[in-house]
């Protein structure tokens, strides 16, 4: 099958690359050996954000370069090591009271509602909405609305109010996971049994059993429907 080739501009230089590649792969095809801006290559680490324009267009676009197909006329620049304002806190000390977010990240109240964060999000999250939840102290809603964030910080790079959205979402999620979500009684019960040493003996006994008996046990074990 004949590959279709397209003309693109990578960091200001013109290259001709196969159209089926991602932007990341196109960089490598062009001869770059990537060190920065290339992490999981599967859309989960948020490390490969790039910014681009289609040649001749005024519109700036942003995306994850490993999850976006290259297109003819793309003029690609990189967003690497975008600095955000992550505040340190002690998860044991803070409480999900209304003012904790405001104390750590008062800039969320400077949001001008431009929605550039949401427009830029490669995960399709409603970023401005989760910042609104944070403003109101509704951390559980903020946590769920920001859950799929990969921390690429494209939102922060586009924000005129200079908010560090990913840090806000992460704080809301940790507060939710630790304090707001219901406790798991079955987990707490099992943990206390283990701490009492309830499973030491049965595990030691299993470890001593002959191989044939273990095979018998495994092959005939009951499997939960």
């Amino acid at each position, binding site marked *: 099958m004949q590959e279709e080739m397209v003309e693109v501009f990578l960091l200001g230089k013109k290259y001709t690359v196969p159209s089926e590649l991602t932007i990341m792969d196109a960089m490598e095809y062009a001869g770059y050996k990537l*060190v920065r801006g290339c992490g999981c290559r599967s*859309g989960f680490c948020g490390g490969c954000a790039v910014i681009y324009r289609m040649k001749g267009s005024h519109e700036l676009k942003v995306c994850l370069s490993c999850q976006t197909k290259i297109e003819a006329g793309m003029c690609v620049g990189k967003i690497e090591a975008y600095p955000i304002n992550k505040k340190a806190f002690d*998860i044991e000390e803070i409480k999900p009271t209304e003012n904790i977010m405001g104390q750590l990240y008062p800039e969320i109240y400077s949001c001008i509602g431009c929605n550039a964060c949401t427009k830029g999000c490669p995960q399709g999250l409603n970023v401005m909405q989760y910042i609104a939840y944070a403003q109101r102290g509704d951390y559980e809603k903020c946590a769920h609305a920001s859950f799929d964030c990969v921390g690429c910080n494209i939102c922060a790079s586009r924000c005129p109010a200079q908010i560090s959205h990913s840090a806000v979402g992460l704080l809301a999620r940790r507060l939710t*996971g630790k304090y707001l979500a219901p406790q*798991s009684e*079955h987990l707490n019960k099992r943990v206390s049994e283990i701490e009492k040493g309830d499973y030491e003996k049965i595990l030691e006994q299993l470890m001593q059993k002959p191989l044939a008996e*273990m095979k018998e*046990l495994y*092959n005939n074990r009951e499997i939960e429907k």
Partner: protein
Amino acid sequence: MLTAEMLKSMANVERTRSARMNATPARMSAEEKDTLLQEYHPDYRQSGFTVLSVGPNKGSKVPTELAELLQANSRIRGSEIDLERVDYDVDVLIIGGGGAGTSAAIEADKAGAKVLLVTKLKMGEANTMMAEGGIQAADKENDSPAIHYLDALGGGHYSNKPELLKRLVHDGPLAIKWLNDLGVMFDKDEKGVMVTTHGGGTSRKRMHAAADYTGAEIMRVLRDEAVNRGITTIDYAPAIELLLDETGKAAGAVLMNYDTGEYLVAKAKTVIIATGGAGRLHYQGFPTSNHYGATADGLVLGYRVGAELIYADAIQYHPTGVAYPAQIFGALVTEKVRSLGAMLINSEGEAFMHPLETRDVAAASIIRECTTRGKGVPALDGSAVWLDTPMIEMIHGAGTIEKRLPGMLRMYGKFGIDLRKEPILVYPTLHYQNGGILINEQAGTKIENLFVAGEAVGGIHGTNRLMGNSLLDIIVFGRIAGKSAAQKSKETQLGKLTLSHIDKFQAELAAAGIHTDKVSPLLLPTYTHGRKVR
């Protein structure tokens, strides 16, 4: 665009779907599985392996691509590195910024040690971040660590180190509790009951998840906690050689600033290798689901100072890697897709196996379907089979995929495929190194003051790991390694630093007649995507 042949075969999948809904194929017997593995699993293909000529595992076979790196030259052979000029002087040096290294860093810091964590890419750009499906732990009423032990032992072909497996399953619920209390948002119902599912080879539903971002959720919380604690971390600073002291104890590492190429000396009373796996070595030409830096660096560093490997020839091919479209070829399709009921289907529309066999069996079964049985669907690079994702919402109701597999829905959606409506093409992808450096229950090795945690470890899972036991092991053994290394650092007085083991290893290579231009650790693979390079 799907080819005409793909569309024709997809129609077969759709045609048989409703009949298949209540007719799950039977599980294979132990004998059927053994025969299948021997005939079709890549680990049994002798041509993919090389017997080592030097080092602690001399005489054992390992994947050829790994052998070439284990038996390569040091990157700093012949360079003069002034070990008196110390750039960092710490109690505990942790090499690797994934889930295991970061868990270790948190525990070592908690124990009062001065910690330095160095990582080749950015902290969190690691396989942990990409682990989608879940984390096992026996915390439900109908389950127990003993049942978890049996599942993992049988799945691992009875080759797991019993004392390591015991620690894994015993500490499982403690690991979930630790993560929960750090603020990891596990899927729970309104009463707090964890939403758990099966994985391949489990006999109880003990797979805890955070949608299909389980590893990402764990990793971003661990990373945040490390930052909160003020732990010193250096990104883009791979270790390229371990340092010993004159008595043979691990004593730090030579690092490289990956931006400038400059070497740095990190002196440490104890060292933890947490460098992860080897998918980017592309054993036997397989694509991989691993992150960009998975190049077995820790195995190379450890082997050169005399640490022993175990089961380095046991590789996990995840049965369901993306076989189409090209842009995400080899990426992971989480096993949770099968946990939720999607079946593996051949070109004729037949379900050819129970969807929840262990990973090695499932991978071998897919390879058989695509080779001797001739029932694969021609895809990009060889044949593939269907994973019938629309079944999930027929079983669990509309909206299930968006809620429980948002990552998968998004990944495919970006390339124009809606997996709620159409099945997807999959083929095994290189996923995990079952083996690694042998450790004891304290995560120690036979090299004094050298600890290992995470995928770089061997022995916990035997020769085949179950889904969800890797996220568990990085937490359980990451924490153990952090505590052990912090404790040991308090009792340690270091002697003079040395790199004499490099000369010794080079002499062994020469004596074995190995002359090579290769240097290791590899650090990163090189990709040109088919372009011919001068």
